[in-house]
């Protein structure tokens, strides 16, 4: 269950980073955000990226969406270079980034307005089918009667639930979560893990989750990739063997604790030696 760096390439490979590096700036000011990185993610996988701040976790997400281009190497999504095959991507960030002038329901429905094939039908279905779908999803995360509210009327945890709905409403094949539970209190966070797991088991998107929280990674992910910093690189890639649905109680079992401990030690040991600046 430890250090599986070379997964066999299969039909199901959904995301592949091949010898990818990413550097910013030029000359002396050049910063390597991501060192030589290889990563394969299978269809329907739930992969957590953990590691210290600034190790390029979020960079990997941006590479996969095509928001930034790799300096070297290739990023493949759904069998072709990123951007070539239009796939539906859902994204949720640490900041819920709701548009303040729209109601929560309209915020959740925004992807349907943008993403084909839904956008062609948006005008016709926004008051019927799409609206019902948004309401059903909101109900599932416990926001049944909040569709007509505006974002500022909701708490941080509620906004993050709505943000998850927005990430999922267009049935994305790929879900990218950038510390979506990072700013929440422990109880809300655990509640949302359960919600997230349930939604994932039902919809089965491929998920990349960036997180600082090892317990969160262990609870949600099927695979955990540990990254180091300067340059950012994946140093460990391990499957998480626990059966689903997982519970919070599971996270107190010895196997779970020893797993998170191993990951923790790994991350701590990967800390860069303090350089003289």
């Amino acid at each position, binding site marked *: 269950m430890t250090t599986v760096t070379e997964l066999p390439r299969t039909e199901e490979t959904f995301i592949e980073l091949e010898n990818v590096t990413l550097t910013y700036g030029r000359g002396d000011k050049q910063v390597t955000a991501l060192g030589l990185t290889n990563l394969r993610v299978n269809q329907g996988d739930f992969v957590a990226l953990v590691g210290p701040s600034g190790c390029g976790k979020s960079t990997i997400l941006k590479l996969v969406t095509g928001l930034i281009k790799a300096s070297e190497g290739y990023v493949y999504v759904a069998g072709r270079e990123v951007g070539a095959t239009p796939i539906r991507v859902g994204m949720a960030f640490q900041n819920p*980034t709701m548009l303040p002038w729209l109601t929560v329901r309209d915020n959740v429905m925004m992807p349907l307005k943008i993403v084909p094939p839904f956008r062609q039908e948006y005008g016709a279905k926004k008051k019927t089918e799409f609206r019902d779908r948004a309401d059903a999803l909101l109900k599932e995360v416990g926001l049944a009667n909040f569709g007509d509210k505006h974002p500022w009327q909701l708490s941080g945890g509620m906004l993050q639930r709505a943000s998850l709905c927005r990430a999922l409403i267009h049935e994305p094949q790929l879900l990218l979560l950038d510390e979506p539970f990072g700013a929440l209190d422990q109880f809300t966070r655990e509640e949302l893990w359960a919600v997230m797991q349930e939604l994932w088991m039902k919809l089965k998107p491929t998920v990349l989750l960036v997180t600082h929280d090892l317990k969160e990674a262990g609870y949600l992910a099927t695979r955990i990739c540990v990254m180091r910093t300067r340059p950012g690189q994946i140093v460990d890639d391990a499957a998480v063997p626990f059966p689903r649905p997982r519970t919070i109680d599971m996270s107190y079992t010895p196997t779970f604790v020893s797993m998170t401990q191993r990951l923790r030690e790994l991350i701590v040991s990967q800390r860069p030696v303090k350089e003289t600046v």
Partner: protein
Amino acid sequence: MSPQARRKVWSAVLIVGFFVVWEALCWLFNVSDIIVPKPSQIIVTLIQRGPALWPHTLQTLYTTLVGFGFGIFIGIALGVLIGSSRLAYDVAYPLLVGFASIPKVAVVPIFVLWFGSGTVPAVLTAMIMCIFPIVVNVATGLATTEPELEDVMRALRATKFDILWNVGLPRTMPFFFASLKVAVTLAFVGTVISETVASNRGIGNVMMIASSNFDVPLVFAGLIILAILGVALYAVFSLIESKITGWAHRKDEFAMG
């Protein structure tokens, strides 16, 4: 009394008080009509000359609104163009400031040269007066849109237009309406300048003729009409603003209870 109502009452008291003090000072120092007429006299003039002033008032209002309409249209177009990229913003700004610094009264003769005297130069003057604040505000609103809001859209592979329409423009609305309130009063200034220089209609023209006849109460009557029109249009746009961009002013509403 609610704080809001109290504010309105004090506003009214201030306005009435201003005219009362004006009237009192005129009596006290025995100021000649030819220098500063009393408010009571201006009101009498307004009523007596009302029928003659009315078509000129409509003319000025019409000219201003047409110019203002064109100004909004061009202002939004330029603002979107300049605000949509950092480069365009930096490149175009100096030129824009240059245009804004030109005294508008100086361009009226040019417009007259091109289009003859009358309504057209007045419309154009009103238009160029109000373009600048609209462009600056729309461009600033767009340029300061939080990148996170755009990231949400970009991750969905939204086109530039999608982002502009769904994020940029709605987010810019509070800036836009703030600029409209300034622009509409500037449009009046533009109209009146042009009417004063080159027209035989409109309040500006009436004031011009009145002052050359030393009919000072009529000049002041014209000023009062312009002030009333300005306040009225300002109020209209404030109302529209509060309807459309209520989300941006929620703190105020909450504080009001």
